[in-house]
């Protein structure tokens, strides 16, 4: 149930398990107080960062010369896209690889990949939605078959496929291996899809901050708000990742112990009933 890897990585909650006396049921893994504190602090920072970004983005920063108020989407959209396309996918690919690597094989990496993909899907959908909202007034259409949009959509489908595969009931190790392979194959495919859709069609504006000569084409309060948005959304991602990871641990625990728990419950019911009517034990009738 517990994994030896999680202690070396610090921030991810390390599940503590123990066996309940007499029943044989393993108690639910409890989050350590340090892990809980970390989760709280990151959550609060993410909330503060997001609120600050919204305030700066909507009230403090000036409207753009060309785009007017529409430019305010720049504080959200690139940040969400960065999390969805680079952070979540990168983390899922790396942890899947680490799971497959025999020396670092541990369910920790599998759960991290799964959590990363699931949170990544949320951010991916947010990317597509915020992009559509931005695209309608600027390009005149909700959707264009532009290279980056297409790549984002293909990644979303790959993410969803990965999640569908994880939902297939299997032993945790089998599921972990299978999912890790799929994540790895998809990760290998990403550069190929990237090149092919780039040659296919490009309409999207180039990167604003990370352009080739690394001199941002955006200044003053707008630049700071944009940066804060990136940090805040990254924190939101990390917080959601921590919570999803913890839920993953609990889910696995439940899957392992569901039967034992139900048995223990029925037995205790039976013990209660047997005082009154000894013929009707355990609700077997």
């Amino acid at each position, binding site marked *: 149930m517990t994994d030896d890897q999680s202690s070396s990585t610090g921030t991810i909650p390390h599940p503590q398990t123990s066996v309940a006396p007499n029943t044989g049921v393993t108690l639910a893994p409890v989050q350590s107080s340090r892990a809980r504190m970390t989760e709280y602090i990151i959550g609060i920072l993410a909330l503060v960062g997001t609120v600050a970004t919204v305030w700066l983005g909507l009230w403090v920063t000036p409207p753009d010369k060309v785009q007017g108020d529409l430019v305010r989407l720049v504080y959200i959209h690139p940040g969400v896209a960065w999390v969805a396309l680079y952070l979540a996918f990168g983390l899922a690919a790396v942890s899947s690889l680490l799971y*497959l690597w025999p020396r670092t094989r541990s369910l920790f990496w599998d759960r991290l990949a799964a959590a990363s993909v699931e949170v990544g899907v949320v951010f991916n959908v947010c990317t597509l939605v915020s992009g559509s909202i931005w695209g309608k007034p600027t390009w005149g259409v909700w959707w264009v078959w532009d290279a980056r949009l297409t790549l984002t959509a*293909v990644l979303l*489908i*790959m993410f*969803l*496929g990965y999640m*569908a*595969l994880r939902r*297939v009931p299997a032993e945790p190790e*089998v599921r972990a*291996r*299978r999912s890790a*392979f*799929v994540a790895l*194959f*998809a990760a*290998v*495919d990403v550069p*190929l*899809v990237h*090149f*092919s*859709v780039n*040659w*296919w069609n490009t309409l999207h504006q180039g990167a604003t901050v990370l352009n080739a000569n690394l001199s941002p084409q955006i200044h003053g309060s707008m630049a700071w708000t944009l940066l804060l948005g990136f940090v805040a959304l990254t924190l939101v991602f990390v917080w959601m990742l921590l919570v999803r990871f913890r839920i993953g641990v609990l889910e696995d625990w439940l899957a392992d112990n569901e039967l034992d728990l139900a048995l223990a419950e029925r037995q205790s019911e039976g013990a209660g009933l047997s005082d009154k009517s000894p013929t009707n034990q355990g609700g077997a009738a």
Partner: protein
Amino acid sequence: MWRDAVLVAGKDLRIEFRSRVALSQVTPFGIMALALFAFALGPDRVIMAKGAPGLFWVAVLFCTVLAIQRSVSVESANGARDGLRLSGIDPAGLYLGKSAAVAVQLVVLEVLLAAGVILLYGARIAVPWLIVASCALGTIGLAATGTLYGALSSGLRVRETLLPFLLLPIVAPVLLAGTRIWQAGMAGGTPSDGTQWLRLLVVFDAVYLAIGVVLFGPIQETA
């Protein structure tokens, strides 16, 4: 490895030759797909000739899914997969053999489908070598990825629905490249546009063949 590959490919093709599932079910499905595209796009032959490259590859992709399902189900009956593993055949050879058998079936299918788009859609081919090259490289890519995902999903009860979902986004570059190369090779296209797409297909094939040769053993143990 190569000897094992030839043995496995021969076995799969012999099964296919005797059962004729691909011939009697997959091929008619491909032809039917061409008819459906024609119904969807109307009787206008100009539109259909323009869309022919893409429609050809979409039909090939759908047929690939069917061929892979068949290739997997051949092994899942009567404990054939365990038999193959016990026989001491090199996993890399097994992978290459299975892929080769699928590729051969796809090539036969592509010849029929190509004849279909030329006859039914009025598509005119100007540079035949581009078309042949795209089909050869595209088929290798489809067979290589398909066999990989087929093995991965072979133990799943929901294989029929999950396999296309997992496989089709992965082979998106093959569809894009294949379509573009066909467009370059059609009458009115610019043949030089095709070369970079051919290179992309070569990279795609090399990457997934290498993955398959290295990882097919561990993947089989997973299923």
